[in-house]
């Protein structure tokens, strides 16, 4: 019902350029605390319990599949010559890309003073962390003998060998592990004042102790806030080049090789835009139901959803431009191998993976263009349905890049098709269970919206604010 009280698209009164409030219905600070903290206090609703059991069992597919994989071998996957990288790397790039929206919201929108980020950054950052966890599983187990994965780290060992720092695969190890660590730190530092809120509201001794330890003894003194804010600003400042570097480095796995279809300089910006595009789609996929279930309409307003839809149409258009430019350069470069890979492996109706290429084109380039229409951005159900296309399309993008480039190399005698095995499918399916399971636990145990930042964007948070309803001025 509070949807209707939102005035976002109501008739403009007076100044048409007047800013819409970031928190609707003049909510007080006390209301914000009570509403967000209330989400994780008291009993969780029955749907949550059912959902957590279902996703928990679903997530068990991951350890089961990995146990089978370790005890049998990577041969249980469909990856084989000539397609030695297939679903595992597709899924890795897919999940790592999803994380990028969280860092964009938490870091880049923070630096650019986009205050609307405050009510979505916590959940988006949580998604970043859970997505990177899902992503890391695939390359770690694709190395084959996972118990030897520590060789990737530069640790002195009995064999006196060191990693090859010139390899893009090692760059990936450093990029992804740094990204995970810094994202986790950034997320946790953002959580500290809110954990203190939960501590101060806690009634039970045990709860107070656990949240008290997690809150590090935060007191909210201004002498603490000034260091805190500076640290947060710097973390945002270093996370910005970090997030841009991570997907650039992931794209180097392909771009620095000499495989037609991979060997292109457009990959880093194209991957980064695609990651943000796919990430926002996932943020909307999870936030829209969470908003409806927990009644967060006053904090995640239509303006927030509208802004995210606009970012999707922007990044989707960048991705579309990159697809076309990649195609154009393949032809214009005059490199017969490159053009052949595009024409006969991807776009030609008789190409074996044309269906994947055109699904990607439709989902990532055509479907999000609907967000140019205001109606599509304001109808919440329409938004939720439209963002499923980028979710699917971004998976297909990685599949197209990896599998269609590999399945036909320079020698027609070694051409082959890729068919996923049941274990490919079950492990990928299982990571969705893991992702949702972790997200549900997050909703239960941590404040899903940044309480202190939402308070700080209220008009009365300004020390020079004058209450229009108060009698006389205070100073």
């Amino acid at each position, binding site marked *: 019902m509070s949807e209707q009280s939102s005035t976002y698209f109501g008739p403009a009164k007076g100044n048409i350029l007047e800013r819409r409030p970031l928190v609707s219905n003049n909510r007080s600070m006390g209301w914000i*605390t009570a509403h967000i903290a209330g989400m994780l206090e008291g009993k969780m609703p029955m749907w949550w319990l059912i959902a957590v059991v279902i996703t928990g069992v679903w997530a068990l597919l991951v350890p089961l599949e990995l146990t089978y994989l370790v005890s049998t071998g990577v041969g249980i996957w469909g990856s084989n010559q000539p397609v030695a990288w297939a679903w595992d790397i597709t899924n890795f790039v897919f999940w790592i890309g999803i994380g990028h929206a969280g860092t964009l919201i938490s870091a880049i929108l923070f630096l650019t003073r986009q205050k609307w980020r405050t009510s979505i950054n916590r959940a988006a950052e949580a998604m970043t962390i859970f997505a990177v966890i899902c992503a890391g599983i695939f390359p770690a187990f694709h190395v084959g003998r996972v118990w030897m994965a520590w060789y990737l780290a530069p640790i002195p060992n009995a064999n*006196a060998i060191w990693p090859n720092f*010139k390899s893009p695969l090692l760059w990936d190890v450093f990029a992804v592990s740094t990204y995970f660590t810094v994202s986790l730190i950034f997320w946790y530092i953002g959580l500290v004042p809110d954990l203190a*809120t939960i501590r*101060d509201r806690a009634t039970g001794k045990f709860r107070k102790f656990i949240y008290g330890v997690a809150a590090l003894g935060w007191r909210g003194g*201004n002498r603490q806030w000034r260091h*805190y804010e500076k*640290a947060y600003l710097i973390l945002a400042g270093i996370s910005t080049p970090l997030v841009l570097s991570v997907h650039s480095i992931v794209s180097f796995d392909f771009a620095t090789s000499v495989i037609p279809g991979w060997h292109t300089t457009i990959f880093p910006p194209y991957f980064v835009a695609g990651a943000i595009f796919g990430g926002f789609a996932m943020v909307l996929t999870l936030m829209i139901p969470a908003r409806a279930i927990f009644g967060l309409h006053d904090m995640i307003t239509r303006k927030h959803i509208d802004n995210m839809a606009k970012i999707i149409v922007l990044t989707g258009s960048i991705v579309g431009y990159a697809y076309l430019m990649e195609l154009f350069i393949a032809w214009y470069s005059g490199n017969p191998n490159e053009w052949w890979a595009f024409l006969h492996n991807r776009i030609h109706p008789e190409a074996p993976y044309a269906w994947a290429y055109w699904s990607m084109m439709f989902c990532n380039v055509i479907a999000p263009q609907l967000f140019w229409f205001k109606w599509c951005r304001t109808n919440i159900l329409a938004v939720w349905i439209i963002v499923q296309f980028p979710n699917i399309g971004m998976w297909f993008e990685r599949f197209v890049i990896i599998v269609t480039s590999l399945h036909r190399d320079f020698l027609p005698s070694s051409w082959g098709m890729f068919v996923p095995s049941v274990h490919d499918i079950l492990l990928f399916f299982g990571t969705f269970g893991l992702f949702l399971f972790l997200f549900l636990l997050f909703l239960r145990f941590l404040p899903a919206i940044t309480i202190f930042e939402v308070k700080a964007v209220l008009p009365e948070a300004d020390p*020079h604010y004058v209450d229009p309803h108060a009698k006389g001025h205070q*100073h």
Partner: protein
Amino acid sequence: MKEDQKKIHGIGAEFNNAQELYVAAKKLRASGFKRWDVFSPYPIHGMDDAMGLPNSKVSFFSLCGGIVGAATAFFLIWYTSGVEYPLVVQGKPHFAFEPTFPVFFEITILLTAFFTVGSMLVLNFLPRYYHPVFNWDRFAKVTDDKFFAVIESSDPLFHEAKTKALLEDLGGTHVTLIEE
């Protein structure tokens, strides 16, 4: 221990909003107090100036972290791939800046993040589970919607009755002695 022998940590006052707290902070600063702080549910814009606090030193430590990270990364990569374990890969030089830049960059970022967070915690004397202000029952509202100012008894200008009166003059309510 007898009740009246308990040490006093300081005197606290409660304020209803950021505007009152801001004015109070300016006046407390003008009164010459040194060991005091204002507490709020969110960082108040402009409060550092009102309290006369200098810029935070965290950025200096971040820079140190960046330099340490860059030096560590350079030494690690140069020593392992250029000196200790030179490996011929695709005819590339054993050590060159271009192919090692990504790892160099990532380690620099990682160490900067560690130093930033570490220095923030150290400068804030965190983590610290117990603090005397937590003994004041009203203080729990600091993370909700109330604003507080606390003047510590270790301040040279601290005087139980006078400080109490001053805080009341500034519009503080529930002015309370906080026990150690």
